[in-house]
């Protein structure tokens, strides 16, 4: 794949993120019975190290739900919560954060949001893709993001990050929603969008 993207391609990818995370926000709102606000997504194509920095401070503790996507294009869906946001979300669902039940609830949220996101992506781009079961970890943000991006970027130095913020109204709870396509996945996605 080429190592840089045109502005037009990044706009198209941002629109994909917008539609995908819009779908995810709707699913979250139905699940929680609360309004969910969506910030304008970012589409970042950066060298690996800069991409990790762009996501947030490396030493910050985050709960992460990782949902691998495979099929016509391979990607990773990543949901990130601060410890406080994870606790709020778990309490909204009536479980305690940091327990097996809490992790399971976060994983289920990741599953539902991630599936909503990729369903939108699938119908938009006309691709057939499926999620694998979610993984939940709590660790340093830099370690989480760098470990995933070295997987998706492979031997290329450019990582593509589609980054959305979901904000649950009425309680202090927000989360980052990221799509990390593999190098081959981006090429495929752009081709399907007529932007290759």
């Amino acid at each position: 794949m080429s190592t840089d993207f045109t502005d037009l391609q990044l706009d198209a990818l941002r629109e994909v993120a917008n539609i995908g995370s819009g779908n995810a926000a709707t699913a979250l709102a139905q699940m929680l019975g609360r309004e969910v606000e969506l910030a304008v997504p970012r589409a970042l194509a950066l060298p690996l190290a800069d991409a990790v920095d762009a996501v947030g401070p490396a030493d910050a503790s985050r709960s992460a739900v990782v949902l691998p996507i495979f099929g016509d294009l391979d990607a990773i869906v990543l949901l990130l919560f601060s410890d406080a946001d994870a606790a709020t979300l778990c309490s909204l669902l009536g479980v305690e954060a940091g327990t097996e039940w809490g992790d399971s609830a976060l994983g289920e949220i990741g599953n539902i949001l991630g599936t909503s996101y990729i369903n939108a992506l699938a119908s938009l781009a006309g691709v057939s893709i499926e999620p694998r079961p979610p993984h939940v970890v709590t660790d340093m943000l830099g370690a989480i993001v760098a470990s995933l991006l070295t997987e998706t970027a492979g031997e290329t130095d450019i990582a593509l990050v589609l980054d959305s913020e979901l904000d649950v109204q009425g309680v202090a709870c927000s989360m980052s929603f990221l799509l990390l396509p593999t190098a081959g996945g981006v090429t495929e996605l752009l081709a399907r969008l007529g932007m290759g």
Partner: protein
Amino acid sequence: MGELAVSASADDELVSIGLGSCIGLTLIDRAKAVAALAHVMLPNSAADESAPPGKYADRAVPALIAAAEQAGARRVRLEAVIVGGAQMFKLGSGSTLDVGARNTAAVRVALDAARIPLRAEQTGGSRGRTVRVHVGTARVTVKEAGGQDVALFGGARAPRPTTATGAR
């Protein structure tokens, strides 16, 4: 990330924050109090010539040796400490091998090729880590996510080799 740092100032501390599958590779000359640290992300550089020198294990080791020598270290006294190489996620994508383990193996091979002894390591597992290298005391500490800094190498009372053991 992918970068490398070197210092001969006793008060300096070199830090790599949030190592997952990446490796914090430290080279130390204790007698000269020179330390160098690289944040290695992937095993082999392949065709990626424009990447920063610390990014790939195979290029990071020679680059780090050169940087340490430039700062006054003697190559024959260099000792290595490695931290990281975790497998944080088992994504089961089949074709993807464990990058953390491959990084660890590649760094070991590159150190062997350069005949730099590996004195201490904390690698593998599934947790992210932060490594700190205090230049003056050659003390290396590791902190796992949510944990405390734990000494891995060196410090004020570290034994000094008194006889040369010859090249291995």
